[in-house]
């Protein structure tokens, strides 16, 4: 962990401390003050205790960063705000708590965590400082009060003002803050109508309802709940005062976000919705396809099973017949039936074959429907040789001959016309067709 950079501010402040010179700070020359930036403008007065601290820190070397110093101070301020119990154990607790809080809070900067870890290591030493600082801070407070009073009186008259504060530490001049607040604060008490300021302070500390600052959803929810409570309370108060709250539906005026922006938002919403819908549809289609195949297979299996069953039944019947000893009361119908059964049985040995084929589902009417159609169209079996060659009959057939066609230009014109496939339909028609499917 490089420490040099965190010490940037120290030398300057030390110099200031070393001087220990009282300076008069004017109200007017803001230019000078600005130049000095964040370095304390006010006069530095160190208690001896502070000096000791300084020495100790020097010995410690560059370990103490500005950040560390800042954290040392935090418990001190808490104490100032609350009770003045100054026990070592208390201090330690405070310090630990502080570090934890810091650890949790600053998620964006990794290196700070490292810093904190270091701090906990140097925590004991820090505690020593705290005690010393607390003692000195009490004195500081007293001084502050006096100075602020002076400042108040002088400030209005535009005269010179002097105030004293610690140089090395970060500044939190509570008295000064309160006086500044008093100077410019609007009256938001119950004496003024609510419509005057329209500000609502929540009843809860919002941070308490945020489990982790990195949890975006929970955090935003907490903020929203705060605002929602304010909206409810505000509406109640405003209605009580008779201030119009709800915008009537026929009140049109320029809005904060332009119509184009809202149009964009709407377009985006619609796009998202359609995308969602389309993906859902596609998924459904996929599922359907998968399911459809399953159904088909199941159907085929069922058919095969049915076929097997009927065959078995017929076999059984046949056996029974044989056992029964020939055709007894044989009329013609039964004869016919017998023939059918025999035929079926003759196919018996080949029935094994058919069983094999049965798995393919071609058992029913022999080949599948497509084959059947093709067979019907082109014929099946038989001699293939010379099938296309002319014979006496075909050569005598002149029905396809037309003298007029011959004259007009031969087959070049006619043939392509004949074999030209149907033109591809237009896009719209194709789409419509797809929709039907």
């Amino acid at each position, binding site marked *: 962990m490089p420490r040099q950079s965190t010490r940037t501010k120290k030398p300057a402040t030390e110099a200031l401390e070393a001087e220990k010179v009282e300076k008069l700070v004017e109200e007017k020359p803001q230019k000078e003050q600005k130049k000095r930036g964040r370095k304390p403008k006010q006069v530095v007065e160190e208690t001896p205790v502070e000096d000791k601290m300084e020495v100790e820190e020097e010995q410690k070397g560059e370990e103490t960063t500005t950040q560390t110093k800042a954290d040392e101070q935090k418990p001190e301020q808490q104490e100032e705000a609350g009770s003045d119990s100054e026990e070592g154990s208390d201090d330690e607790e405070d310090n630990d708590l502080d570090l934890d809080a810091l650890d949790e809070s600053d998620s964006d900067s990794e290196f700070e965590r490292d810093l904190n870890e270091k701090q906990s290591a140097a925590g004991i030493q820090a505690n020593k400082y705290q005690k010393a600082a607390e003692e000195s801070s009490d004195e500081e407070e007293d001084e502050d009060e006096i100075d602020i009073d002076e400042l108040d009186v002088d400030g209005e008259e535009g005269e010179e003002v002097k105030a004293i504060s610690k140089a090395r530490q970060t*500044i939190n001049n509570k008295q000064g803050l309160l006086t500044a607040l008093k100077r410019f604060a609007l009256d938001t008490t119950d004496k003024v109508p609510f419509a005057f300021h329209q500000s609502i302070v929540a009843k809860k500390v919002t941070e308490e309802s945020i489990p982790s600052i990195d949890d975006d959803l929970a955090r935003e929810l907490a903020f929203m709940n705060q605002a929602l409570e304010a909206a409810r309370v505000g509406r109640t108060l405003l209605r009580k005062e008779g201030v119009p709250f709800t915008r009537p539906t026929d009140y049109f005026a320029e809005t904060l976000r332009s119509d184009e922006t809202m149009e964009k938002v709407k377009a985006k919403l619609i796009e998202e919705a359609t995308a969602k819908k389309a993906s859902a549809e596609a998924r459904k289609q996929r599922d359907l396809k998968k399911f459809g195949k399953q159904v088909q297979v199941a159907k085929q299996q069922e058919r095969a099973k049915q076929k097997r069953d009927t065959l078995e039944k017929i076999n059984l019947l046949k056996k029974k017949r044989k056992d029964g000893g020939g055709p007894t009361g044989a009329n013609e119908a039964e004869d016919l039936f017998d023939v059918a059964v025999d035929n079926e049985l003759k196919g018996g040995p080949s029935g094994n074959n058919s069983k094999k084929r049965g798995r393919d589902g071609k058992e029913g009417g022999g080949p599948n429907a497509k084959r059947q159609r093709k067979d019907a169209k082109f014929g099946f079996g038989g001699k293939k040789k010379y099938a296309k060659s002319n014979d006496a009959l075909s050569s005598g057939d002149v029905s396809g001959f037309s003298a007029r066609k011959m004259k007009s230009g031969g087959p070049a014109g006619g043939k392509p016309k004949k074999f030209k496939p149907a033109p591809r339909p237009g896009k719209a028609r194709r789409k419509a067709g797809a929709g039907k499917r």
Partner: protein
Amino acid sequence: MAAVYKSLSKSAKKVEDTENDNNTTTNGGFRKNKQRVLILSSRGVTYRHRHLLNDLAAMLPHGRKDVKFDSKSKLYQLNELAELYNCNNVMFFEARKGKDLYMWFSKVPNGPTVKFHAQNLHTMEELHFTGNCLKGSRPLLSFDLAFEQEPHYRVIKEVFLQMFGVPQGARKSKPFIDHVMSFSIADGKIWVRNYEIREVEKAKGEKDSEGNDIVPESDKSSSKKRKGAPNAELKDTDVSLVEIGPRFVLTPIIIQEGAFGGPIIYENKRFISPNQVRSELRKAKATRHNARVEQVKERLGKLETLTAQAKKEKDVLDTRELFA
């Protein structure tokens, strides 16, 4: 004559007159809220900073947008500028290094000034929220309870109240209230959000159950509502919020007593400058690299010494010695 009587009778009642500002007059026992905000940025703002500035300017009908200010060191000049435009608030966007945005909120003649570091900026345009509200309608300002607990937060709250709160009867403001600006403190930072208030119809039973889930105060407020306004319409509607934007997070850095000057009365010890953060990151990276380079060097050195040793030392039993 009646007016004179009115004013006299009212002035008898008023108490807060003693603490007067130059921009305030008395009206019915309390100060009149007269605010005008000068909104401007420094040079070198990015598009996002600029859009945020535009968003805020659109939300403040009492705001006056000005051209970019050409200095980052002489901010006290802004005081004169504000005076020129009759503004008593200045909202100044200071961009540094083309990426960091600092926001200065200042009450002009007498201060205080608050300097923030703005992070996580999201403008209205880029956030695709569905909320919208009237341009220039007065917002409800919702503050976290934490704003009341520390003096510096109280100062910040007051500054926000005067800057973002549209004063009653502001010139371009609209008569209805349809949005809430919420300021919450979490993680030592101030999170600013802007929501539209939408009135939704709700059945009574639903309202009780759901309202309890969201906010415990709803019961009380709804009962108050019924008492206060016996309209049938009021009973049925409830409030829901839809975010509008923009979003941003402010880390207070300092509070100065004057306007762009004066002693610093608060300094945030938890604030770390983004420059420092970046440099730390860079250094962390550099140390990693340095360690690696050192390792390589060490290894090479070892290798060298070993080879040198091997060359130097010739043993008696070396093959070259033996069979030379």
